[in-house]
């Protein structure tokens, strides 16, 4: 860092009611949070509301960040949950398909395929429903209940899909390694 305050230092300033510090956090994080949320929800208004909620929450309870890990990850945890709770009150909102292009470009695939076998290809073989569950629970860190609200399906459905998706991934990866 070139002399600029860290995110954690800004968050500490926020706890002393420094609006300028919150604005700097917003400047650093609102953009990528908005893109990442937009990948989960196609309703721009909802995403905007969720972003606003997130920084309002950060203003009201900056102590929620316990000082370990990244502020970015903490903000994301708030943002995705605010989005879920906003979506719960709406019907007719379409969750973005988790995967627009089924077969990813080869050069991008290198990112994931080195250590764990061909994870990218394994994920691509999952049905869209299963990918959505994997994304919500494994990658976004939601609970089964929150994922169910995000995807508008029963909780039991999320659990079943997650179980099957994991089994299928294991099988595909084991196949690739052997």
């Amino acid at each position, binding site marked *: 860092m070139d002399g600029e305050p860290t995110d954690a230092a800004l968050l500490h300033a926020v706890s002393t009611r420094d609006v300028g510090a919150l604005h700097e956090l917003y400047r650093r994080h*609102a953009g990528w949070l908005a893109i990442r949320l937009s*990948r989960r929800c196609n309703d721009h208004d909802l995403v905007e509301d969720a972003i606003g909620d997130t920084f309002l929450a950060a203003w009201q309870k900056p102590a929620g960040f316990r000082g370990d890990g*990244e502020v*970015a990850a903490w903000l994301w945890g708030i943002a995705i949950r605010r989005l879920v709770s906003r979506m719960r009150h709406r019907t007719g909102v379409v969750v973005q398909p988790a*995967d627009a292009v089924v077969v990813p470009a080869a050069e991008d695939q290198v990112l994931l395929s080195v250590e764990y076998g061909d994870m990218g290809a394994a994920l691509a073989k999952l049905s869209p429903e299963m990918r959505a569950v994997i994304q919500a629970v494994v*990658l976004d860190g939601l609970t089964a209940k929150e994922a169910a609200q995000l995807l508008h399906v029963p909780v039991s459905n999320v659990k079943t899909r997650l179980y099957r998706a994991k089994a299928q991934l294991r099988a595909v990866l084991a196949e690739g390694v052997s």
Partner: protein
Amino acid sequence: MTDWHVDDEALRRWVDQTDSMADGASVEQHLLACATCRSRANRESQVLDLDAVWARTREAIEAPPVGVFERALRGLGLAAPEARLVAVSRAFRSGWVGAVAATLVFATLAAAFGHTRGLWLFLAVAPIVPCVAVAFSYDARVDPALEPELVTPYSAVRLILLRSVTVLAVALPAVILFGWLIPGIEPFAWLLPGLGFTTVVLAASTWTTSLRAATVVSLLWLGLVSVLAAGPYSPDSMLRSEWQTGFFVLAALSCVMFMVRRHHLRELRPWR
């Protein structure tokens, strides 16, 4: 932090949502840990009006804290937007409440020291306080907060009743309290005329503005009281049951009238 960064192509595909789930997940995991790539991603973010979102967020942060009166209304079970709607009424600003209190104090003092003549004065003032209070809380010229409310999709009758009840909840106890201070007068005697005049004003507001209605009602009442005071009557005559029954009938009739004609509420439909 590593020297590795998401390449431009992968970042652009992530922003455009044209990458695969695995690639997207990879980018997202990296973003959580890399401020450099985050600021690169921020520059790509043009889908949303983030400046407007920040303006709203800042507004919410800097909004004045909810007042005591509004909190009390919420405590009584009123929903937050309705509590705000009622609390923004001019009738509840300190200046207005002060003016009502000053009028009552004046009338009470006159009654306490001026004997019969003062008692007549209190009798003249006390019952019209509630109806004037209600009228003022609906006049758009008096209450600037009313204007945006009028164009919001909200049941006009519900708004009127909600506000009237709360205005009365403030004005009536004040009148009763001051009435208690006067020896020899039953404080509740003014309750029925006060209610009656208020419902008359509400009913009349289906024809004309409530402020005009309140003015007419007040003038009629003041005229009646001064005629009675000039004649061989004592202030106690107002306490007799036939008067009270009359006020009750007046209140009941006005209520019915208001509900029957509620679709003609004039000043709540200024564009008509």
